[in-house]
């Protein structure tokens, strides 16, 4: 376990020293809040936002989007460390293979959690009115989303070993996954066939659960299913990526 702490701190230092990333982690959600959320105000009271509070629906989706994209870049970092021999050097140390993976995953989780918390705090004066325990649960669930994408992207980085292949798969899946999850507009607006497709998107369940939690509702159909799907995916991707660290191709 101490290996995880050491390797997490290694990645944290790397992040802190690249102020560009710290800033861009904050600006993207804030730009959505400032330049996109106002467009939705006209829709208040419509089928999409029955309760009238646009931010209560939009913000959980925005946080889910942030959680997803915070983990996505992990594979690029892994490839850079394959190329500079860092992965190889660490694999010869007695550090557990899980720690080699999880140090980076945990960094990504922090890199999600810090801006996400700030965004929540900023949104409150603009009318975001969540349940406090609910929003804590929401952030916890979305941390698992970040962990899943981070592990998945790392595993693909270890397998592809080159940016081209990784980028094709990750960015190729990013758009359909986020569009189908209903992060920007709820899928209650969608035609039936589109809603059907969304059931195949794990991020959809995370967004559904996030919206329920934000309202302070803990139900089986949204929160229960969301926690189950994302929890299972977290375990699955972490196990898979750890195995990839055990056997890195020469």
């Amino acid at each position, binding site marked *: 376990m101490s290996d995880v702490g050491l390797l997490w701190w290694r990645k944290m230092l790397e992040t802190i020293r690249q102020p560009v990333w710290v800033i861009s982690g904050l600006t993207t959600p804030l730009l959505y809040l400032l330049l996109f959320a106002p467009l939705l105000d006209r829709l208040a009271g419509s089928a999409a936002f029955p309760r009238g509070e646009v931010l209560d629906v939009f913000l959980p989706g925005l946080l889910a989007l942030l959680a997803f994209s915070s983990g996505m870049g992990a594979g690029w970092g892994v490839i850079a460390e394959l190329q*500079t021999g*860092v992965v190889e050097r*660490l*694999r010869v140390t007695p550090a557990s293979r899980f720690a080699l993976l999880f140090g980076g995953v945990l960094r990504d989780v922090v890199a999600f959690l810090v801006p996400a918390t700030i965004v929540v705090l900023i949104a409150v004066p603009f009318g975001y009115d969540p349940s406090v325990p609910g929003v804590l649960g929401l952030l916890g669930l979305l941390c698992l989303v970040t962990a899943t994408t981070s592990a998945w992207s790392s595993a693909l980085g270890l397998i592809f070993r080159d940016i081209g292949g990784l980028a094709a798969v990750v960015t190729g899946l990013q758009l359909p996954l986020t569009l189908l999850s209903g992060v920007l507009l709820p899928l209650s607006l969608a035609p039936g066939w589109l809603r059907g497709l969304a059931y195949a998107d794990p991020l959809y369940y995370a967004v559904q659960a996030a919206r329920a939690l934000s309202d302070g509702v803990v139900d089986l159909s949204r929160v229960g299913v969301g926690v189950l799907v994302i929890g299972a995916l977290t375990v699955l991707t972490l196990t898979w990526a750890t195995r990839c660290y055990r056997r890195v191709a020469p």
Partner: protein
Amino acid sequence: MADVIEVQDLRKSFPGVEAVRGLDLRVAAGELFGLLGPNGAGKTTTLRMLTTLLPIDAGTAVVAGADVARDPRTVRRRIGYVGQIGGADLPATGRENLLLQGRLYGASRSDARRRADELIEALALGAFVDRRVGTYSGGQRRRLEIALGLAHRPRVLFLDEPTTGLDPQNRANLWDQLRALRSDGTTIVLTTHYLEEADALADRLAIVDAGRVVAEGAPRALKAQLAGDTVTLRPRGDVPAVRTLLDAQPFVRNVVLDGDALRLAVPDGPDALPELLDVLGGAGVELAALTLVEPSLDEVFLRVTGRALRDVA
């Protein structure tokens, strides 16, 4: 002395390539051992198997008292490894790299700090160790990477092509540092495709070709046994008579007449010279000139593989 590395019939295939095909190796404690061979001979693959980076297909390898396939964790605790492409963390400083490395091997914060100071001193990293590694020159980075390999005082240090890409000055410095390490008792195994490096540095070496060891021994012994030294002498007087005399000596091979000089091969030049002078002096032969040329490992390589290393490297 006890063997620190025992490798028997090691094998590794990749799709379409048999990289290592039945490699045997023994390295004694405290030795500086070289694996010499052209690119693609299987040196790096062998090293990667011995350092637990690559699963072994067949054969056994015991490194620092533990079986590599069955107990990789113990092997990892006892060995250091400096890879071909380095492995230092570029966004961190050299000191941060050293501290992290020490702690990953289980050292306490203060022990790691003390060990880092020792290594900074030993490898002369002081001038740049608190800068980020990304700003280092090639030679500085190499020294840091070797220090990283030594963070936990490993019994065996493996280095893969440690001087590739270094200028002659840095290469000579690195040789000195490796010799100093060896005299402190660390067993060192390195791969190289530079003949001069294997010759100057290694106590013993194995020539690897097409995934097998084709010759093994001290550089001097290999040269003596496989190529022999060349003596050229120019006698005064009756050259054919001297040639007949030399042909009759059991330690002399291949006497060739070359103008007014005679060229001949002896297994060990420095040993053979006094004897040769005795024989010639006893027969009353006076010499106008005498030179001894030691063979290069290139000749040894040519002899055992049928190819010149420089052609294939």
